[in-house]
């Protein structure tokens, strides 16, 4: 039974999230500004925090920074700001993920689950010789098994090979041509489109919201990459 702290200055959003999370079987603690959130995190044993950025008294960024001083509890930022700089700032300050408003409740639950799995289970996962990981994605090359947050996903051999190529070079951008030549072992003659389609399928399997990928990212006009250190 996990306890989730929900913090937003809009009470309706808090109660809506409360209903969703409670129906998923989580306990919730509510807070309506940054100060209350910090107090609640001190008094309750909290396993995850959903935190709005724009709040009175103490905003989400500052509160996150304050909480990070003594805890590594997962924090997901809820943000109405769609500015990239806000997201980057939030992640740099110690948040683990973010969801932009207006959000889909299902996406929230999926992200909450993912973060909780990572926070509770992944800590003890042993790193075998053939294990390649990036964020929640783990690939056991020996067993040819790929898991996301510990949940195995089924991939076609081509998808598997593409993911393996990208995972073994995190942060590096591969163009469609490079991926084609490496995975198919053939010179590419206008068959790059295939690569793009495969990667889209791959993204749909790995990412919670494929339109806003967190791990397998599209670098528009250049290629694809696995986010380094994600």
């Amino acid at each position: 039974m996990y306890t989730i702290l929900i913090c937003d200055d809009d009470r309706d959003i808090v109660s809506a999230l409360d209903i969703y999370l409670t129906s998923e079987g989580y306990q919730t603690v509510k807070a309506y500004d940054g100060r209350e959130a910090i107090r609640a995190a001190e008094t309750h044993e909290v396993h995850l925090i959903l935190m709005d950025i724009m709040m009175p008294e103490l905003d989400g960024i500052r509160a996150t920074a304050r909480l990070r001083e003594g805890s590594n509890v997962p924090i997901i930022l809820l943000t109405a700001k769609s500015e990239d700089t806000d997201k980057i700032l939030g992640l740099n300050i110690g948040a683990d993920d973010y969801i932009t408003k207006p959000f889909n409740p299902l996406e929230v639950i999926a992200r909450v689950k993912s973060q909780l799995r990572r926070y509770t289970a992944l800590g003890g996962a042993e790193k075998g010789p053939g294990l390649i990981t990036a964020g929640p994605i783990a690939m056991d090359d020996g067993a040819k098994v790929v898991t996301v947050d510990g949940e195995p996903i089924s991939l076609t051999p081509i998808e598997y090979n593409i993911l393996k190529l990208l995972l073994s070079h995190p942060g590096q951008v591969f163009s469609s041509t490079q991926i084609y030549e490496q995975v198919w072992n053939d010179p590419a003659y206008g068959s790059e489109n295939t690569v793009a389609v495969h990667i889209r399928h791959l993204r749909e399997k790995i990412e919670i919201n494929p339109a806003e990928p967190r791990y397998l990212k599209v670098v528009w006009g250049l290629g694809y990459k696995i986010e380094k250190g994600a």
Partner: protein
Amino acid sequence: MKKLQCSAAAKICAVLVLLAAAFGAGVFGVRALISSVSITRSSWQDSSRFYSAIDERCQNLVEGIEMSQTLEELEKQIAEGTANPLAYADAEALREEKARMEERFSRQNTWFRFRLLTDDGQTLLGTNLKDDEAISRTVKEMHYFSFELWEGGAYGNGHYYDPETAGLNPDAEAAPLKLVLEYGVPEKVDDSIQDEFSQIWRLWDMDRASFDQYLTGFLNLGALTLLALFWLLWTAGHKAGAEGTVTTWQERIWFDLYAVAMIAAVVLLSACTIWAAEQLYWGRSYAVRGEDFDTFFNLGIMGAGALFAVGVGCGTLLLRTLAVRLKAHCLARTTLLCRVVTWMVRTIHDFVRLLPFTWKIVLGFGAYVIVTFFLIMGGVYNGAFMFMYLCLQLALLIFLSWWAYGYYRLRQGTKTIAGGDLEYQIDTRRMPYDLRLQAEDLNNISAGLSAAVDEKMKSERFKAELITNVSHDLKTPLTSIINYVNLLKSTQQTDPKAIEYIEVLDRKSQRLKKLTEDLVEASKASTGVLSVTREKIGMSQLIDQATAEWEEKLSDRRLTLVTTLPEGETWVYADGRHLWRVIDNLLSNCAKYAMEGTRIYLDLERGKGQVALSVKNISRDPLNVPAERLMERFVRGEESRSTEGSGLGLSIARSLTELQGGAFDLAVDGDLFKAIVTLPQAN
């Protein structure tokens, strides 16, 4: 000290002292001037006074000799009985006259010594020397006068008779009687015999004795005058109870006019003083003894002193006003000449300045050519002109260098400002006038630009803030709506109508979400708040990625994508994420508005440093609006707004393309809809 400087009493005292001292100095000066003659000559006989006196004696003597000859002839006629009846009376009168003359020239009555000789020097006709006296030893300097004695008159040959050649006169026989007068005055005379010579000597002696005294008096009083003058100059312009320099009516007169008048007065008065001194000098010499000349002389001296004092007074007034003007720093301002010259210089200067630049060059060049021509012409004959010509060239070189340096500074400044440093101010000191005007204008522009840029930055920040806040304020309630509609959907509804209503709410809230997002994005893109990071982007790669994203959705609508790409990768300079949004919007447009079962053509073309991507599709509904209108916000191909889409897609696409330095064009040909994105090609 300040008090003393301002004291009116001290000033009046100084004026009185000045005038008194000047008067005294004048008196002593005139006296010293008169007596200076005695100092500069070695002997009292070496003076014009003496010469004129001795000449007069000589003339008198010659007249006396003529008279005695006339008398002799008259007596002879009387003795012969040929004289007219009145001759006796004449003779008597002549005899009286002769006696008086003899009396006058006798040793007892004069220091004048003479010898009358025939011109051969043999016969002595008359003298007032003693027998044992030689005239050459008696007198200080011997004078000669030779003359011919005719019947009825004497004709002098001049003063300087040479005794050596006298006897060799070839006309000796022709002349009736040739005579030589030797005369002079002894060096030592005294008051034992009183005549004009003793008087001259006495005055000379007196002058000689008192000259030092007069000079000392003059110098002392002159020093006192100067002291008083300096005091007056020092205190000039200061007045008790007044700050700064006080000017009077005198300072309102043009200085040069004042100076000319005063200098003329001083010169005139000095000339008068000297003239008076001269008159007095001569007058004293000729004054007949016994007349009351001394009183007149003294009065004359006083008058000369007064003239001198007035002259000094005039000079003092001039110096005083000069001092006041200098203290008040208004000398140049109150000088007519200076004002006129300043005015003329300024007028010419302004005229030249205001001349159009072209005229300046033309006139300057013309003047240069003329001057050069004359200098070269002159230089053929005269080296000085050649030198002046060289100097002119040097001056021209310096002038041009000055100009060039000014231009260089202007250029540097312009470059700096153009480089983005709007705060930069060009240093306009010692710049040529025309360049300075340019530089000042540029400085003003840069200041104005700087302000405008600041203003723009401020408004940009304001816009960005506004968009962020509005988007937050819209998104927060929208989040609640979507969430609660979702919750409502999960509840059990028995009424089929309620289920239908919830469906509507769900659909519309999703549409509202999309609209909000598009709205924020459109305003961000059109206000330029978005940050653009342009880099080398592969167009073929991007189109691949985009088609991969859209292929399924398009095929769901039975739309076929036909892509034509040139050989190899096509590189452009663009921001990948923004360019993706452009293509995404275009393809989403196709998905929404293209007629089902048709093909969508995606063509990429390279050429002339530009890359053009065109997207063509057949519209499902007739396009009843012109292409330009389609790009406006909230305009869609069909008038009804029932379909999905915000009507912002094309507007966003255009703004984003333009942000990246590209061009976005639409063309409508019947039902054919064509969008062209043109971007600069990267090498």
